[in-house]
């Protein structure tokens, strides 16, 4: 009688062991599924960068005065650092910004400023996973002389190798 009971328990423990294995395989497969799934935040990153540029150049609806100076350096003036210091890029620039200003009335170009890895700007308008992501915003501003200006800010985030 005792022997039979032991045999029954042994048989059941095999099933229990199999169930543990199944549950572990299930958990590991689920985790691997999520771990391998990439989350592309480049669109949002480009949007935040555009907002930061606008925030730096425009105050109370007025474009800062030194924007029109010949030696205006966007990176230095806005305290940006476009270098990606992660292991993959080792200080390489993965961002680009272009600011175009136009006369509001006739859309005649006033001045444009570019900063960062400007080759990336050529990808704007193209669609695809392995294509750098762009964010474009236009806004209406005034200069110090109350002239109406249309400002167009384009930000691009590269990092296509991560996708």
């Amino acid at each position, binding site marked *: 009688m005792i022997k039979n009971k032991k045999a029954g328990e042994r048989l059941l423990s095999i*099933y229990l062991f199999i*169930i543990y294995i199944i549950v572990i395989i299930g958990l590991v497969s689920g985790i691997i599924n999520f771990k391998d799934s990439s989350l592309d935040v480049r669109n949002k990153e480009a949007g935040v960068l555009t907002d930061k540029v606008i925030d730096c150049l425009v105050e109370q*609806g007025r474009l800062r005065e030194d924007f029109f100076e010949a030696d205006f350096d966007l990176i230095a003036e806005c305290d940006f650092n476009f270098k990606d210091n992660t292991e993959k890029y080792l200080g390489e620039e993965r961002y680009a910004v272009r600011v175009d200003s136009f006369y509001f009335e006739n859309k005649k170009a006033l001045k444009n400023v570019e900063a960062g890895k400007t080759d990336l700007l050529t990808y704007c308008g193209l669609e695809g996973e392995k294509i750098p992501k762009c964010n474009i915003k236009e806004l*209406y501003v005034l200069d110090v002389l109350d002239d109406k200006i249309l400002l167009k800010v384009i930000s691009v985030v590269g990092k296509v190798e991560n996708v």
Partner: protein
Amino acid sequence: MYNKKAAIGATMTWIVATIIILFVIILFVYASGAFISSSDKSFKTSPFNVATEQSLLALLETKLDGKTVRDYIIEGDYKTLRKKITPILERLPENSLKISENGSSKVNVGAFIALSAFEDRGGGYASTIYLDKNKKIEFMMRYVKK
């Protein structure tokens, strides 16, 4: 004999339990895989409306025949304001300007549609400024003129 029968019963129960657990696990793994492939892998965060806000601030400071838009609103000369501000708004990316006083609409220029409709059409943000307790200025704008 009796003991043996009991062991068979318990074993059968565990076999069925194993099959059910296996089925549930496979279902969960498959569902998680399907969920990942179907979901939008980008963040959906609330928009930061710095472009719209700065445009609205610039609009308020814009001089129309010697007087700023802000002055027109303070004086309550909405009829003249509507006439003079429309050409400016038409040159901007798709937008709408609504000025209300004590809750009643005084100026309603542009395609004043719900913000969600702007978002469906590629994104646009709203900004609101109160000139005093009673005068509310709402401005919505798309990012880019299309």
